[in-house]
């Protein structure tokens, strides 16, 4: 095609010059020409050139507006608004500038207003975002989310309530108060993180007429909880005399996200019972003879802690698994019971120690966690004063903000309710909000006393 002739006007109001296309293609930066539709069959009309320039400019000029009924009327409407086009906006800004030059006091406000106006979309987005967060935490929505998406429904807290009671052991007001406080504490925690809370009335568990299996109900309770919550994976047993000091710790972040780091398999790390570990008999397989089982965190089915004297089952975790089924099944055995019930003061706890000591199939799936991770003792709970080094491992430390306190053995000569009350107050104090801290400080400055 020859370009040596001059472009001639056409009826559509443009030029029939094909050379016109070249600069546009360069400015669009494409390496290959894109297919475009021209209304005049290859000719450049005024309208198409405008449309194209609009494309290059990145915003539409008036010619691209639709000519429909609604858009016409909207245009009329929008013409009435202060800013209709960029040109007018500029004019307006100039006017503002003039005003500002006259009145200095309005200047800052005007600038701020302009900034706000310029950022209006982003600010609206931010506002909606903040509002969303607010609503998320004020309504129970966050519990639902933590429950179903955060894995909260994988955890069940089993709380043994209504210990004693019955005709033989009357419950006084203190016992009721302990129970109320403990249950409330766990309820709050479970709701916060979306866990299930299974409060077990232990008095109804004595279904064996001969009562010879009395206070061995842990196994039955865990089993029925497993049936009751078929979606749950981990079951956390808690004695009544426990208090969650830091409800802001979720089980996932506190323990389960990194089982490898938070637990130890080799009991020689801390071995108050002096159990010889691992097994050495040559007829056992390598996994049973290994000090750490297979070493994978997936094979952990049971997590417990050791206090000054050995295993402690005041706060422990079991995972739903075939292994757990077998363990719960074999845990109580009449032959063992008959021989040992006078000797095994701590019943299930001693039986578990027996199984751990004698059954190679049990060991590779049990992991220990440090006592203070899930089961801190109050001072003096070990019976007889212990060394400072022991205290650091077992007993509650306020400065480390330990997760849970287990007032183990407080029913024997200690004041359960007093301990529970003190720890409850301490937990409140440690976890109060900024406003409460401020208020308390004011109050303290007036009274001149430091309440603890």
């Amino acid at each position, binding site marked *: 095609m020859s370009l040596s002739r*001059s472009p001639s006007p056409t009826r559509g109001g443009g030029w029939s010059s094909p050379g016109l296309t070249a600069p546009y293609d360069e400015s669009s930066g494409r390496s290959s020409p894109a297919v475009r539709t021209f209304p005049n069959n290859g000719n450049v009309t005024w309208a198409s050139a405008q449309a194209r320039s609009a494309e290059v400019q990145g915003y539409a000029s008036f010619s691209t507006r639709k000519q429909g009924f609604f858009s016409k009327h909207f245009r009329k409407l929008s013409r009435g608004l202060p800013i209709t086009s960029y040109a007018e906006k500029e004019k307006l800004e100039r006017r503002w500038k003039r005003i500002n030059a006259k009145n200095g006091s309005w200047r800052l406000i005007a600038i701020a207003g302009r900034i706000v106006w310029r950022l209006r979309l982003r600010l609206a987005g931010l506002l909606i975002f903040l509002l969303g967060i607010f609503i998320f935490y004020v309504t129970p929505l966050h519990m639902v989310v933590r429950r179903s998406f955060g894995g909260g429904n994988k955890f069940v807290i089993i709380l043994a309530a209504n210990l004693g009671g019955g005709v033989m052991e009357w419950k006084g007001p203190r016992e009721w108060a302990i129970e109320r406080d403990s249950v409330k504490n766990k309820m709050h925690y479970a709701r916060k993180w979306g866990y299930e809370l299974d409060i077990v009335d232990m008095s109804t568990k004595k279904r064996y007429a001969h009562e010879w299996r009395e206070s061995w109900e842990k196994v039955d309770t865990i089993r029925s909880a497993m049936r009751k919550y078929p979606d749950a994976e981990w079951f956390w047993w808690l004695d009544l005399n426990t208090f969650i000091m830091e409800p802001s710790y979720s089980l996932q972040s506190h323990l389960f996200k990194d089982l490898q780091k938070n637990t130890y398999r080799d009991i020689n790390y801390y071995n108050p019972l002096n159990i010889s570990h691992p097994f050495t008999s040559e007829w056992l397989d390598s996994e049973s003879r290994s000090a750490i089982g297979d070493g994978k965190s997936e094979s952990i089915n049971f997590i417990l802690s050791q206090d000054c004297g050995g295993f402690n089952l005041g706060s422990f975790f079991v995972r739903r698994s075939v292994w757990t089924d077998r363990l719960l099944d*074999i845990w109580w055995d009449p032959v063992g019971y008959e021989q040992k019930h006078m000797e095994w003061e701590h019943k299930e706890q001693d039986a578990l120690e027996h199984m751990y000591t004698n059954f190679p199939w049990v060991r590779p799936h049990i992991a220990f966690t440090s006592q203070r991770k899930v089961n801190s003792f109050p001072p003096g709970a070990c019976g007889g004063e212990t060394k400072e080094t022991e205290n650091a491992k077992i007993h509650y430390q306020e400065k480390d903000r330990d997760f849970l306190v287990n007032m183990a053995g407080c029913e024997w000569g200690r004041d359960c309710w007093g301990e529970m009350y003190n720890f409850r107050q301490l937990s409140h104090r440690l976890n109060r909000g900024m406003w409460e801290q401020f208020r308390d400080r004011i109050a303290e400055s007036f009274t001149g006393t430091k309440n603890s």
Partner: protein
Amino acid sequence: MHFAFPPRKTSNPPPYAARSTRYPLSQYLRRSQIRKFAIIGLGIIAFVYFIASFSSESEERIPPGTPPAVIVTVFDPSADAVHTEQIKRNRISYAKKHGYETFFALSTTYDLGKHTNAWSKIPAMRHALTSFPHSTFFWYLDAHSLIMNTSLSLHARITSPSVLEPLMIRDVPVVPPDSVIKSFSHLRADDANLIIAQDAEGLRQDSFILRSGDWAKFFLDSWMDPLYRSYNFQKADAHALEHLVQWHGTVLAKLVLVPQRTFNSFTRDSSGKNEEGLYKEGDFVANFMGCDKGERNCEDEMKPFLDKADDVPA
């Protein structure tokens, strides 16, 4: 050819330089090249994944030449050596014929404390499980038994599900005659981890087949519980087994009862109540239970049977 006009500039120049591309990567590569690299990259990832999954699989893969079954027998070291040798040969010839392995142990090998050597079958089985970690079935056969009919493999005779299914005895007292605990009625052959027979008095723990796995370890360890050993059951390990089966559902759920003559026929009905379990010509196993007690002599009793067993072409 010449141009009459220089190329026209646009009369409406863009206010800013137009963005050259939508995707920064395409500055350097053409679209077809990007596609090519993407395909190659995906291919590499898929290959690595395949290799990784293959190698992790190979850890659990059963190495070639693994015997599908292992025959375990525990011998009393005080028994006559020639006789013991004969019994060993009986096991070995059957194992050779069907590609099995044998595992022989002495009853004094394992530390049982002060308890009777009958318990040694349990650590022996555990030992066999350790020695042949990939084999599926472990058949404990007492030293007082002989394999008489070597024609059929264990699989064809007992362990294959289609064979086992009709053999299984469901919903009968686990410990005859009157235990309230009955064998599971809805058990399938796939569930069978312990195949055992019962005679008129109880479970016959002198011949049983155990499927390897975690359950087998659980079962053997529980059976070996020191508290069972110290309890002085009248029949030691036999009564401990019956206790275990009746009190623990996870054990019972994997237990399959089969007719006694499947793999544990008695040569003599010493109690007079056990006619069904008596050995008949062509039975798989002959059990000379109690032949080492009192007046009886195992060698004499076994002699005709040994000759017969050897007659069968190997």
